[in-house]
């Protein structure tokens, strides 16, 4: 079964790219290929000029099923320590450093709890903390907020934007939520249904830092949102065209 047909994408360092498309269109597959977790049957992926054959260094992929990605036999802090172990951090220093990362996501008080004792939003934050502990340059997020409630989603979006700008990460976020894509990204790549093709690329010329309330009332935000929603729902948009 062909998942992706003709996808070409260049991500600039420090950029926040959102890949937007309907469910099942192959965006997760694209992300996993980019992460080196799945081989491409044709075409290539390059990171910093090097071809990607397996999970590359300095890149962490965050799963859609983040609850399942946390190790249930390890406590929250020990889950974060897993990333530190992989980086070769000495045993004595691990707990302290792990707690730091947990503090960044606001979970240092839950260090010795177990993943199954936390809410969905908290579990996602542990996954984020663990990803950060690997000190990556690139983060690939696969629909990271689709399974949490609306309020938690807003909190997590703010957290990710904050981390992205502070640590100068490159982020590729896969989502089916137009709102989310426009709110968070520098550039939006739209994928059609299976087999996926890139149908549109739009720069998001909205100023940063972005505010959860006011940005969402910005006319540029609304216009872009309108266009993309229309495209998704296959209706003619207000500002059709634009550079592809």
């Amino acid at each position: 079964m062909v998942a992706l047909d003709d996808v070409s994408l260049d991500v600039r360092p420090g950029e926040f790219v959102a890949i937007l498309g309907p469910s099942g269109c192959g965006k997760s597959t694209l992300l996993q290929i980019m992460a080196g977790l799945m081989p491409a049957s044709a075409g290539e992926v390059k990171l910093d000029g090097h071809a990607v054959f397996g999970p590359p260094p300095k890149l962490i992929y965050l799963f859609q099923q983040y609850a399942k990605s946390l190790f249930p036999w390890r406590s929250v802090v020990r889950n974060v320590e897993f990333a530190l172990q992989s980086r070769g951090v000495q045993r004595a220093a691990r707990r302290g450093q792990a707690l730091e990362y947990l503090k960044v996501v606001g979970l240092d008080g839950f260090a010795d709890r177990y993943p199954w004792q936390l809410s969905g939003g908290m579990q996602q934050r542990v996954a984020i903390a663990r990803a950060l502990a690997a000190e990556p340059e690139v983060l690939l997020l696969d629909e990271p907020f689709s399974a949490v409630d609306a309020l938690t989603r807003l909190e997590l979006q703010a957290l990710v934007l904050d981390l992205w700008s502070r640590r100068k990460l490159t982020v590729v976020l896969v989502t089916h939520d137009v709102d989310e894509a426009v709110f968070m990204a520098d550039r939006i790549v739209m994928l059609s249904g299976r087999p996926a093709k890139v149908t549109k690329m739009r720069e998001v010329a909205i100023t940063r830092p972005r505010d959860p309330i006011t940005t969402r009332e910005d006319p540029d935000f609304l216009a872009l949102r309108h266009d993309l929603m229309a495209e998704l729902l296959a209706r003619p948009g207000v500002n059709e065209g634009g550079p592809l």
Partner: protein
Amino acid sequence: MSRLGRAAVSASGLAGMLALWETVSDTGLANAALLPPPSTTLRAAWAIIASGQVLAPLGQSLSLLAAGYALASVLGIGLGLAMGCSRSIYGLFEPLVELLRPIPKAALVPPLFLFLGIGTTTMVTIITIGCFFPVLINTVQGVHGVDPVLLDTARTFRRSRGLTILEVILPAGLPMILTGMRVSLALGLILVVLAEMLAGSGGIGFLILDMQRSFDIVAMFAWLLIMALLGLILSLAFDILETRAVPWRAH
């Protein structure tokens, strides 16, 4: 029903069975010489325990079980991990396993005694072979059943294959492995008793047979009861250890 309620129902079921047994033996419905009533059996069993008579045979049977069980678990988990993680190793051993597994291990006891003699080594070998297969098969299943998300997580963090097996696959497969070890424990106890009956040199199994041969039926039933208690205690201990080892299983 509350926890207390459920416990009361179980207890009443047990009490009812004991009452029935007592009646059957006391009224002569069953030959009391061949089926002593629970009151007599319990008293005899208590006498054996209280006097310390139980210690030597119990120690002998338990150490046999422990040796065979430990060896079987190490070998079973080891080969199980190898077979689960490597397609070629799996292909190499799978036909052999499928051939040997269905053989009731109790049937292997007489031929093994014939080929290897009737020493402690043979007995430990019997128990090891018997306990090996459930652990092996469940370990393989446990490995195969590990959530791919966990494996991919280890991959995105670029953890080496060996460390992934040790730190991710083994703990993830532990619930399944423990299920196999529970089955092995029950099987191991049966094999210990059987081997002891045939080897004739001590242990609870030997005593049960010896008491039968001497027509000391009360003592025989008392030892049977002690053996049943041993099985129960081992099972409960295993439950407790399992809950500690895999606390996430319930969630």
